């Protein structure tokens, strides 16, 4: 194997064997600017001596072509091409355990920096983000429309065949099993707990005001449409209730 120096990241961004057009410098700068301008950036990146303790302790580094040290180095050296390259796949390998952050002698947070890069990947509608997040759409639908991230009806033997036959050791309809939980807020199947309608609608304002809804539109327009409809319906429902209260 030869170890000759190449300029692959500059010539063939994201895929060294493809003949795809390089990404424009202005776009690379904009992506880096988006990452760097987050108020957390300066708290998460203080310097790096390449000691590698982050990678030595990283669970994902044991299974993927991923290294938190590499992420820190790319950002520290402002290697725009390398940053873009890492955003194609590597950043999605991170398990977000923050072991790297706990161990870094400089107080860096490679896991936190990965989150800033993921946010930027979504903001720029990168194909990698779309592909990686497709299986996550059900969770996003649940979260954005209800305020809950997970619900009992998402856990089934069909959805998680590798969890084996003991997902529930008592055979009974899900509705009955849920009502047998002695916590009244948990007698639900479509949300983890009963969420007040007023609460969900408040959350919609947060999604809109913070640009989350627009991020979703960039990454999954179909899911965005579905969620928009749900939000409109629930807002109408709450308005009707408020009008009824006013009449009473």
């Amino acid at each position, binding site marked *: 194997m030869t170890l000759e120096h190449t300029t692959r990241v500059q010539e063939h961004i994201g895929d060294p064997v493809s003949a795809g057009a390089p990404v424009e410098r202005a776009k690379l700068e904009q992506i880096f600017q988006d990452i760097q301008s987050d108020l957390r950036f300066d708290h998460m990146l203080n310097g790096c001596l390449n000691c590698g303790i982050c990678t030595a302790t990283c669970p994902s580094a044991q299974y993927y072509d991923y290294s938190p040290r590499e992420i820190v*180095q790319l950002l520290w050296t402002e290697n725009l091409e390398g940053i873009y390259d890492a955003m194609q796949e590597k950043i999605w390998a991170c398990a*977000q355990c923050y*072991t790297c952050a706990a161990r870094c002698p400089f107080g860096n947070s490679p896991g936190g920096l990965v989150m800033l890069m993921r946010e930027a990947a979504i903001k720029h509608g990168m194909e990698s983000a779309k592909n*990686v997040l497709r299986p996550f759409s059900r969770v996003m639908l649940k979260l954005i429309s209800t305020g809950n991230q997970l619900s009992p009806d998402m856990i089934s033997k069909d959805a998680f065949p590798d969890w084996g036959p003991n997902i529930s050791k008592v055979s009974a309809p899900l509705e009955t099993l849920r009502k047998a939980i002695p916590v009244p807020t948990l007698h639900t199947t479509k949300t983890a707990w009963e969420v*007040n309608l007023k609460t969900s609608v*408040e959350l919609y304002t947060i999604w809109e005001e*913070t640009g989350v809804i627009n991020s979703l539109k960039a990454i999954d327009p179909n899911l965005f449409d579905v969620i928009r409809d749900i939000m409109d319906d629930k807002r109408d429902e709450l308005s009707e209730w408020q009008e009824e209260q006013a009449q009473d």
Partner: protein
Amino acid sequence: MKSDETMPAERFTGHGSEWQNSRLAPQDAQVATAWVEQVINRRSMLTGKDRVADVRDAMWQLEKDGEIVVHRISEEHKPVVVRTLYGWQKKIPTVRLWHHKSCGQCGNIPGYPASLLWLMNRLGVEYLDETDQTSCTAWNYHGSGIGNIESLAAVFLRNFHQAYVAARAQGLPDGYYYPLVHCGTSFGNYKEVRGYLLQSAKLRERVRQILAKLGRLVDGKLLIPEEIVHYSEWLHVMRDEVKKLQTVDCSRIRATIHPACHVYKMVPEDVIYDDKVLDGNRVAVSTGLMQTLGAQVIDYQTWYDCCGFGFRHIISEREFTRSFAIDRKIRVAVEQAHADVMIGHDTGCITTLDKNQWISKADGRPVSLPVLADCQFAALVCGAHPYKIVQSHWHASPTEELMDKLGIDWRARKAEFEEYLQEVAAGRPENLYDPRRKITSGPGFTPRVQPAGQAG
């Protein structure tokens, strides 16, 4: 040193295809890495670095400057003071608690919150569990990247504001209840977000505008909690009281503890350490409880590792999650520590470690170990019903083996539960508190003063 011509200087790669095995003999490999274990097994791994500032100092200053209002832990919350990483003091409220639930626990491990509420009922702790709260949204954020610092901060402040005003529904003053966070992911996220809020005027102003639209300000100011408190911290300071309820001997049980990453690796300066709990070299929660209950806490080599949850990996790259959970956690606990149970204190960890065992049969090296949350184990040895309260039927791991070792006749209790399901189906479920308390405003709320007495 090699010349520039021969060095792969521009190659930024991790442990991927270019990684090469050192081919060290096992004994040599152990010698080469022994120093690492000596360091990581010490609390000094965290305290040896430059100390961070205590954000609570900034919090009190901002309140003094009239920028924020602090939701205080008052004497009425009967706080217990504990020591954190650097020896700082942290107040843990023990009564009048507002339960901030975990979506993963409620959806998937419902015996987790049920056991906690059951223990509170037994200890006479007043609390409120209500519908006006959202998830912290951090699981989705860490998994998908959908969200940002402003959305995380706004959700945090909205939920904690609701905790502050919730008692109005019962004719009680603001601040009566103090929020108790169930989920480790929420706990880490909220602590991190609180830090950024206290350090960034720009973020505060942006979020203040959003909270104003929601009517979630106090005197026009942001409400910041004095402490962010995890349920495992409440359980830790209540462990001697829990011990008084114990009816089942667990002295023969060998327990391994899985400390949750987002509980103690995020904002580590806020985590409880106690020199009497494994010499202060491990986070004190869960371990301290298990020791107090009389179980044998067994250390194991990979205690520091995460569980493999990965936030998005458990959904879409499960081969990573299950490989890590089996090989780095469960197998080590079984083969090295000869554990009878693995105890955790976080949602994702319990789910990952509990559910990802059966698949180990696939490579011909099956391994299994009961997995429970600390409060579930505590409830179990205090006589809670293993199915009605601990809800052990939602666990895929062999919790029955643990119950056998504890002398609990799970077959009889399971039969009781299956019979009880007929009552439930007929609309006669038993609850830990009056269901009318769960709605405090909006649709479904009956505007009346509800009894504020002891729950359940």
